[in-house]
């Protein structure tokens, strides 16, 4: 069984994305053997108040059990905690601090991390949506900084972070900048990590450990086959592959 932690529905404001529908996602999941996806509402990263986007997300996914809505919560808004209360059954919560004009390790984000931790909700943070070289001229938000992940991971022993779209150097900077206990509270999706011949993923699995990685695709922005292909190019034990595809995430969910 495979769980994709980095899927979306809806349009993308900076280029035409023609396939952001549940039907398309499910078609890809069936083709690639992905059982379940954590799904965000793509345009909400630019909404000042993502709450209406969350309502859209729940409505769009309402008939699809395999697509689990992951609401976005902007901690810069008064009373944001009520949005967490409204989505207690969600598998996780998303936030986009750099697009919302928030300091990624500032008071609002720390408040959100603590609030999610109190409800045992993992917080999903996306490093970037697109390669720097192809971004729209109005897409000027900075990438999520590694320092912010280190800072948020240190706040409380209950904080759990899923980081999507991080490359090798980012992951190393965070992982080896945390204690072992802090590092256990961060899971990394594999969507942006290079395979051979550079062997970034193979190296990370040796140095950081398979227990710290989860499966993510970035669809419908990114072709999902990419993440499957890079696993297929590794000499992974079935145990490690299962852990990446599902087991590591399940441990967190079971812990709830």
């Amino acid at each position, binding site marked *: 069984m495979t769980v994709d932690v980095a899927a979306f529905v809806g349009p993308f404001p900076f*280029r035409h994305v023609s396939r952001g529908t549940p039907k398309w996602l499910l078609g890809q999941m069936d083709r690639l053997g992905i059982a379940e996806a954590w799904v965000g509402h793509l345009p909400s990263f630019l909404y000042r108040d993502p709450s209406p986007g969350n309502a859209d997300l729940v409505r769009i996914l309402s008939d699809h059990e395999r697509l689990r809505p992951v609401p976005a919560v902007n901690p810069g808004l008064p009373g944001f905690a009520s949005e967490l209360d409204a989505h207690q059954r969600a598998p996780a919560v998303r936030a986009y601090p750099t697009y919302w004009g928030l300091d990624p390790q500032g008071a609002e984000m720390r408040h959100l991390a603590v609030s999610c931790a109190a409800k045992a909700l993992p917080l999903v943070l996306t490093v970037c949506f697109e390669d720097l070289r192809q971004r729209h001229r109005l897409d000027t938000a900075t990438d999520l900084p590694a320092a912010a992940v280190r800072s948020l991971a240190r706040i409380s022993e209950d904080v759990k972070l899923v980081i999507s779209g991080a490359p090798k150097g980012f992951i190393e900077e965070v992982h080896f900048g945390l204690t072992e206990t802090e590092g256990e509270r961060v899971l990394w999706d594999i969507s942006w990590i290079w395979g*051979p*011949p*550079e*062997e970034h993923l193979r190296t990370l699995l040796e140095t950081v450990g398979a227990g710290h990685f989860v499966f993510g695709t970035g669809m419908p922005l990114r*072709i999902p*086959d*990419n993440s499957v292909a*890079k696993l297929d*190019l590794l000499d992974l034990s079935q145990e490690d592959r299962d852990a990446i595809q599902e087991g590591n995430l399940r441990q967190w969910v079971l812990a709830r």
Partner: protein
Amino acid sequence: MLIDVHGHFYTERSGLADWQERNAARLKAGRRMGITAHVASILGTWGHRSPTYFPSPTDVEHANAAMLSLQRMHDGEVIGYCVVNPNFADHALDQIDQGLDGGMIGVKLAASRRADDPLLDPIAQRAGDAGVPVLHHIWHHRQRDWPNQEASDTVELATLALRHTETQFIVAHIGGGGDWAHTLRAARDVPNLWIDISGSGVDVDMMEWALETIGAERMLFGTDLTMATGWGKLRYLESRVDGESRDLIRSGNALKLFPTGAFG
């Protein structure tokens, strides 16, 4: 048959302690992916002794000699492009002649000189005369100069291609960074431009638009420096096209593009 038209290897002068492991990793991954031939190049010393995209003549010679050595060592599995720096015009032509005599089957142009510059004309002409394609590094919709390279975009490469209609050009790595949709527009009506699907970019719609604008008849499988992304795009494509198109992208187009008998 699966032909990778955009591969790279390293040498002891590449400034990498693990250069041999990287070369071995490419071959190992290639075998797992089912690649039957890597058409590949070595970009000088990869910045170690001269810039990757502005290689010195000495580094060009070393790289091409090493590429030919790899070609001999992995007969049929690895075949070389001849790398040249067009700023050293006579040297570039000499290298092409030597490389093709040695069994190389294409010319690799990176980013030493803008693609529409007249200095590239004799190189394009020589490739056309020899019946070998030119693989050209591209920054899709380059809107300014970036450090350490004089990159070209596909509008600029199309200008060269239209001056040399008997020469075939491969637009490198449609997923290699920049606005790939701009490249697809620029290449659509230039029949001697082909697109390789390599590059770290794996945007959904990239392959769909390529099929719609360029067509499977001018698309080529490639991996460049990120083999999983090339393979991922191929697998995605194979879920969307019929068997004939699939075969063209995997190898059929490469068999037409490169000299007869290049792949056994």
